């Protein structure tokens, strides 16, 4: 090391030593989150900004851009398929979220105690999560095949012969919901198990000594103390259902939005407009609206729970 370099190093160390510890920690902290922040900005923030900007253009998909202002948003109001797909999305969420909540919590209650059997069951319930969604879609498609599939045969054995689980517009969406819940229930089960394990055993013992049965304990101890977990599950599952994550893949594989647009979610319609018809601007406008809807839902959840804080009396 030359004398000049050594001198510079000494000067740098002196300067650094003058920084208060708090500031140094703050700088270190900022440096630690910098890569992640950059990643989020480049891969999420920037595309979102670009998508919002794109929604103000008529884009032909071949490099042609024409500024249309709010034209794409006006087009939405007169597009019956937009309204239809929005309705399908909301119905999907209205069916999927309560079902996910109930199945996730029920499974967690069933297998919350530690035992080898319960560990095996937890693994089985979680297993769909490790399977590709395309495979899940194909399996459910096969299970639903008219005359041959497990579901139609089971329905026939109950006296409901001739049911088409994916070909009947009044049933197809529910079948997609079932596949969606089946895929995600293990994940939410694990979250609920975590929540259940946080509840002190003493509360149950005290309740038992006071004469409370299992049902009373559930309603007056378990459910109230699971509020933070329930909040998390409800908000995440609602956003997942409305945004069409996972559901998009299932619809793509199982029905392609049919029969008669009965399973065409908003996210599927956005995809169709962008990649089938080349209407990237219109698709971006619908995607922007979807984000606004998701933000509104999240805000409502937070407002209703005072920012997700729960107090126990």
């Amino acid at each position, binding site marked *: 090391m030359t004398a000049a370099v050594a001198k510079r190093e000494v000067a740098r160390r002196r300067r650094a030593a003058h920084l208060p510890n708090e500031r140094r920690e703050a700088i270190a902290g900022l440096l630690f989150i910098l890569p992640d922040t950059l990643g989020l900005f480049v891969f999420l923030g920037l595309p979102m900004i670009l998508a919002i900007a794109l929604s103000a253009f008529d884009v032909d*998909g071949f*490099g042609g851009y024409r500024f249309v202002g709010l034209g794409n948003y006006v087009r939405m109001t007169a597009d019956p398929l937009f309204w239809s797909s929005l309705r399908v999305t909301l119905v999907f969420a209205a069916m999927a979220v309560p079902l996910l909540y109930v199945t996730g919590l029920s499974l967690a209650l069933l297998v919350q105690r530690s035992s080898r059997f319960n560990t095996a069951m937890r693994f089985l319930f979680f297993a769909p999560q490790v399977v590709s969604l395309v495979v899940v879609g194909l399996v459910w498609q096969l299970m639903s*095949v008219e*005359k041959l599939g497990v579901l139609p045969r089971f329905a026939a054995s109950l006296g409901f012969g001739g049911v088409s689980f994916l*070909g009947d517009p009044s049933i197809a969406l529910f079948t997609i919901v079932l596949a969606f819940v089946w895929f995600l229930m293990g994940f939410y089960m694990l979250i609920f198990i975590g929540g259940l394990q946080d509840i002190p055993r003493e509360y149950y013992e005290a309740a038992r000594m006071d004469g409370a049965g299992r049902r009373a304990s559930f309603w007056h101890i378990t459910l109230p103390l699971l509020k933070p977990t329930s909040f998390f599950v409800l908000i995440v599952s609602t956003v997942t259902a409305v945004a069409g994550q996972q559901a998009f893949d299932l619809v793509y594989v199982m029905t392609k939005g*049919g029969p008669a647009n*009965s399973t065409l979610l908003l996210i599927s319609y956005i995809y169709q407009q962008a990649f089938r018809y*080349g209407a990237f601007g219109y698709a971006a406008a619908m995607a922007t609206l979807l984000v606004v809807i998701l933000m509104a839902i999240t805000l409502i959840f937070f407002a209703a729970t005072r920012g997700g804080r729960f107090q126990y009396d």
Partner: protein
Amino acid sequence: MTNELTGRPWSRRSFLKAGAGLGAAGLAGLPLTAARAESAAMNFMQFIGPGGPAKTQSDWIVQLVDAWNSAHDEKVSLEYVPDSEYIGGTKLSSSFASGAGPDVFLISPGDFLRYYNGGVLADLSPFIEPAARADFPETVIANRMVDGKIFGVPMEVEPMAFYYSVKAFEDAGLSEKDVPKTWDELLEIGKKLTTSDRYGLLFETAPGYYQNFTWYPFMWQGGGEFQDASGKSTFDSPATVAALKLWQDAVASGAAPRQALGGGGSDIVANLGSGYCAIQNMGIWGISDMANNAPDFKYGVFRLPVPTGGKYVTVGGGWAFVANARGRNPEAAGRFIAWALASMSPDSIQRVVDWCTVAKSDMPPRDSALKAGAAAFDKGELGVFTREIHPGTRAEPRLPPEVYKSISDAIQGAMLGGVDAAEAARIASQQIDGFLATYKGAPLL
């Protein structure tokens, strides 16, 4: 943890230095990558090969490109994209949207207008000699032409027909003589062939270009059309309503399913081959699909039945080679396409014969190829297509996505949604008229 090169422990500073170095190296590499891409061969994006699902087809396209590359300075490289990711997925459209469209690619008539109106299809006419141009029948080439110029060279013609299971017919006490010739007979025999674990007949059930494509001939048979000479929609016609009602009746009667197996209505092995249905509405490519995947399955082929007072017509789809007008070298791409499929050289003609008889089972888009491969085109089920089915072929219509979607909604609504056929046709016709009023682009055909 120590740095293995220097032997000194890793410090926060050395991590940052290494990261910055890697970043700089990455950025420095970008121009090199771009420069390499500039000088690379013409990119031919398609869903056939190398490594595609059908070896005979994959071999055909690999040999085609090898032959070109060995004799020309401008090289072509194949980019295989699985079918589901090609036009059905995001690959082709997103490559154009990002300004990196392939130099040569494949499209079907269903997508022609979108790409033509987008200005990315190169005029191939200058590269096709007059004799070769005359070799393509008008019914085959017309939907790839605008203002007398050729923008796509078809590699095949794929007429639609019905395939039936010989065993299912025999089990129901039917024979080849009983194949339906009218729509009424089709429904009646469909019902007769329906059992507790099998459907009598199958039409495509999933919404999409393919379902529209398979439905068009039923509309044409009764005299239905999309628009009149003045450009107004004529979709709301008795012929259209009858065609919608035929598919509706087939499902409502329980003779046809609401859901197809495997890859859908274009998958003959998963449906007819598995015994899920006894009769399947299917294209000519079903012959090679069955030969490759269910060689022992006994089946027959018959042409589309007609409505009372109607005229026989079927639809012929098929893919075409097209060149990107904004590609790296549209002129070389045009020369490549003409050399491959539209030259009067014996190799070019034989290539078409090989594609339609060895790689696949299709009708050739060229008269000379039909003559050169006469023996092969007259054999077995392909012979039935040549003699009975193909003569009534009408080219697949080219429609903008908006019109296609209105028609798709009408088919889906009537067939599976319980919508009255007349109402479905009326709504679609209104939507088509609304769109055509402001449409600016190449004519619909």
